[in-house]
């Protein structure tokens, strides 16, 4: 080990000033941030309550119906409903519903943020030049690093868990929305311009529909990545399946960890199959 790498600037001092900056943020803006995040928290709590208090069979039926709407295949719908039953059979229904609520919320937020940002990136190449490295950083920076400031700002709980999850999960959706729009057949777009379509009509009538398979692939990726964050999210107070895994690790209870892990995988499969089936159907209905 060697300590004599030349010191160009005061890295230690920099660390310090970053710390102070974040602390400053916390003291000055914590209240504001809490007010802003309150509606999201309410919504999450509402979804969670809904899922946890509803009879288990109604949730199972709802998932089956959604799977059917996405795929129009009865077998698929039945399969997905049965998969969800597995979570209950593992004795993890309640935790599963908590995780499901977190997933739904962070996927929704990711879509609300990701698709518009992706659209903007496809429009403005300068924005793309800025965003691409930012997305790289978001995807490669270890989650724990941004957990610290997020926790400092929002405290432990569900909101920081969602923020951390969204930061980690939104990049693929942004990328694929941008890519999907840029890959739209230029001949079709030109035709719509030639008939006098305005930018809004071009976007909603041509670009987004034709990019939909890619966007759905992005949403699929986003849900997968969000699920892989649940354990980390549980470290900052999001309860659910992640917490079970964490307990398993802490107490060296392999069984507990394994069952919770299995339940996470099951949820992942459900999300994956449903979003993929929807994306595929979009592709098949349109161009061959």
């Amino acid at each position, binding site marked *: 080990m060697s300590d004599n790498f030349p010191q160009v600037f005061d890295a230690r001092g920099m660390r310090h000033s970053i710390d102070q900056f974040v602390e400053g943020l916390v003291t000055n803006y914590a209240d504001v941030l809490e007010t802003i995040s309150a509606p999201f928290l309410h919504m999450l709590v509402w979804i969670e309550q809904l899922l946890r208090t509803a009879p288990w069979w109604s949730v199972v039926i709802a998932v089956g119906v959604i799977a059917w709407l996405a795929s129009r295949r009865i077998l698929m719908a039945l399969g997905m409903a049965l998969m969800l039953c597995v979570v209950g059979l593992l004795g993890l229904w309640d935790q599963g519903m908590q995780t499901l609520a977190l997933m739904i919320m962070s996927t929704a937020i990711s879509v609300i943020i990701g698709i518009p940002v992706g659209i903007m990136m496809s429009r403005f190449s300068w924005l793309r030049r800025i965003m691409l490295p930012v997305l790289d950083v978001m995807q490669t920076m270890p989650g724990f690093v941004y957990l610290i400031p997020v926790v400092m700002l929002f405290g432990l709980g569900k909101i920081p868990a969602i923020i951390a999850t969204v930061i980690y999960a939104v990049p693929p959706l942004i990328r694929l929305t941008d890519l999907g729009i840029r890959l739209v*057949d230029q*001949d*079709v777009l*030109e*035709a*719509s*311009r*030639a*008939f*006098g*379509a*305005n930018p809004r*009509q071009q976007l909603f*009538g*041509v670009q987004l*529909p*034709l990019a939909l398979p890619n966007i759905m692939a992005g949403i699929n990726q986003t849900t997968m990545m969000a699920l892989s964050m649940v354990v980390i999210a549980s470290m900052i107070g999001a309860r659910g399946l992640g917490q079970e895994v964490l307990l398993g690790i802490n107490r060296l209870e392999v069984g507990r960890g394994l069952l919770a892990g299995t339940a996470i995988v099951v949820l992942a499969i459900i999300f994956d199959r449903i979003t993929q089936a929807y994306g595929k159907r*979009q592709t098949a*209905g*349109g*161009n*061959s």
Partner: protein
Amino acid sequence: MSKIEIRGIYKLFGDDPEKHLEQAKAGMSKEQMLADNGHTIGLRDISLSIEAGSIFVIMGLSGSGKSTLIRHFNRLIEPTAGEILVDGQNVMELGTRDLETFRQQTMSMVFQRFGLLPHHSVLDNAAYGLKIQGKGRKEREEKATHWLEQVGLAGFEQQFPHQLSGGMQQRVGLARALATDAEILLMDEAFSALDPLIRREMQDQLLALQAKLNKTIVFITHDLDEALRLGNRIAILKDGELVQEGTPEDILLHPANDYVQSFLQDVNRGKVLTASHALSRGSLTLTTRTQPAKALQLLQDKARDYAPVLDGKALRGVITVASVQKAQADGARDIANYLDDVTSVPADTGLDEVLGHMLREQQPLAVTGENGEFVGWLSRSKVSELVSPTPEESQ
């Protein structure tokens, strides 16, 4: 009145076209421009005037700038310099909104690669222009259905584009363009992707539609036969420059240079040129009322063996010197009863058909106009010259 007029259009592709415009105006070649500063000259100093109600054909080899030019008419491509006037209005001055309205109302376009919306049914595709115009569903569907029927696609309304053959997709594109009722129709190699049979059919359909609708059509093609068949006027582009512009006959009979000539090589001249191109000059005509003595006098003056005889304007027959002499000997008042029959062909008969008549008959062939009026005699030597020109002839 000219419907579309463009003046001095220049188009440079590259990062900073304005900067290099002067060089292009000074006549720098396309290759040199590309080597010097990486800009491509798309169009150089194009001025054209397109008559209302005509079919204007743009021809040229691949890369000669045809697509670039046609996209200037509705400003899908912005010129680097020059003016575009439609109905006397300067299209270059239109703001974003007005340009959108202009594209919705005044011009519609058919594309070489169709440009259909893959996620919409054939019906919705045909109705697309109307939807953009903001028309209600009922009107859209009525009109789209009507035009799909017109192009022979009744019954396919609920299909999706990928379920149709190329030719059928092209018809959807045509229906979509016609449905908007725009006065100007831009067609960029609209028939190139089709096989010869369907292509021919589509050409006929276009001509039939044009006879009914009287639109102004700008039509791009690679194919001279198609150009000659459809075009009232033809413009030929080479490397972004206008090489020649004129009627099909102009182009065929007086090609401006070797480039144009090279297009003409394989064309079926016998189909394009008609009897009206091969008339002999200075005809003597008699009427059924002409007195035999007068007739003989005229024939001898002009040193003719025979002459056409008209009744009013209509051709009645032909009279020979021998018949006139017989009429005179008989003491007839006029030559009406001494006529021989004559074979005639309409002026718009293709020369290859005329050639058939020529081979079958030794008698002179008369050429008649639309209402059967006498236009002139067919010149045998001109026919053979036109059908297979000698090398000097084509210079």
